[in-house]
């Protein structure tokens, strides 16, 4: 039993890493990873929302009618996002200004809706909470990994501590938008290489999608759906 519960946490960190393996939540991944401290802030905020919304959705899974489940989930998630937003505004105003618009946009982060649909709506409260925790840690780890690369090369620092800036000139483009796409592309390629079955990632990204079954884009075979 405890093995199973541990698995719920660990699977999100490597095997089903939401960012690198399931390719969910790309927008915040690209946008806020210009500095490692942002990544931690974003990761923690998203993890809190993920745990709370997973817990509540799992508690209510027998009461939410199937037809209106997506709006119901969105409302629950939006409620928790508002709470987190107010807490960040009150206790970490600096973080609030650096994350800016991306903090309220956690609402439409597909990781959270995807986990609600895929896991919390079918499982008991405790596994759902652990799943949320694991996915949150996986999300934070991926953000941190990416932001360390971008901050180190783009600014010569990690967590604002100068590392490379005494030896080489910072490669500014890593911090600019194109660098985000580039580093993310390389990281996904590395994750694919390490896990060695790259078809999996695309299959999973649809499975994690709340609209997996009804999505007409996928049924038309128009491409990988990362909506």
């Amino acid at each position, binding site marked *: 039993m405890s093995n199973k519960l541990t698995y719920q946490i660990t699977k999100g960190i490597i095997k089903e890493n939401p960012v690198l393996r399931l*390719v969910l939540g*790309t*927008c*915040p991944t*690209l*946008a806020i990873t210009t500095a490692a401290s942002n990544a931690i802030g974003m990761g923690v905020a998203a993890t809190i929302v993920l745990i709370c919304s997973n817990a509540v959705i799992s508690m209510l899974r027998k009461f939410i009618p199937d037809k209106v489940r*997506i*709006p119901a989930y*969105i*409302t629950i998630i*939006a*409620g928790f*996002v*508002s709470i987190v*937003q*107010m807490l960040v505004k009150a206790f970490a105003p600096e973080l609030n200004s650096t994350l*800016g*618009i991306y903090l*309220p*946009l956690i*609402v*439409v*982060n*597909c990781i959270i*809706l995807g986990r609600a649909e895929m896991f919390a709506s079918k499982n008991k409260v405790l596994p759902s909470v652990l799943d949320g925790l694991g996915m949150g840690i996986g999300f934070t780890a991926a953000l941190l990994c990416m932001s360390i690369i971008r901050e180190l090369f783009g600014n010569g620092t990690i967590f604002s501590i100068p590392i490379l800036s005494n030896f080489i000139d910072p490669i500014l*483009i890593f911090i*600019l*938008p*194109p*660098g*985000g*796409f*580039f580093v*993310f*592309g*390389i990281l*996904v*390629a590395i994750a*694919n*290489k390490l896990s060695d079955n*790259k078809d999996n*990632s*695309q299959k999973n990204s649809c499975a994690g999608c*709340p*609209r997996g079954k*009804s*999505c*007409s*884009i996928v049924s*038309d075979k*128009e*491409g*990988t*759906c*990362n*909506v």
Partner: protein
Amino acid sequence: MFKALAACFLASILTENYILNRFLGICPFLGVSKKLNTAMGMSSAVTFVMVLATAVTWPIYTYLLLPNKLEYLQTVVFILIIATLVQLVETILKKYIPSLYNSLGIYLPLITTNCAVLGVTMLVIEKGSIDPSFGYINSLVNAFGAGIGFLVAMAIFAGVRQRLEKCNIPKTLQGLPITLIAASLVAVSFLGFQGLIDGLLA
């Protein structure tokens, strides 16, 4: 006045491009940009919903939430308005303009959770709170420009991807990684527009 609106419109297409500079709406950008016609269908649907959503959320925020000190409800209210609006547009199109529904319809359900739509409605509110002269008309123009910027980026990228398909790509980079690297190169080209707007309309 006109000059300011034109600057706002051009800026939201070129220098503040929602996909390539702000990273909003990356998912449809990577997901449905394989063919030009689906890319255009998706982005026209997004433009339509963006303008409509801004047209509805701006007055609600300014005249309902702000005077009653309910700004903290912004996230909840906006996402619900967008979800309802998308549903409403879908129903109306299906009933009265079936031809348009057939071309845009399949993309509409995907737009509810598109962060570009929620992003634009929130960003215009933020801009308005910094600069009081940024009113309703400016917000609508900004939303329309953001939609057109989305369309431009999607169209360019669809062309790039069609070429990529004929290329011989290393196995590890196939699929998503090479798409992201191509997107990075497109984003580099958009960096070239930096400072253009100020120079053009100064």
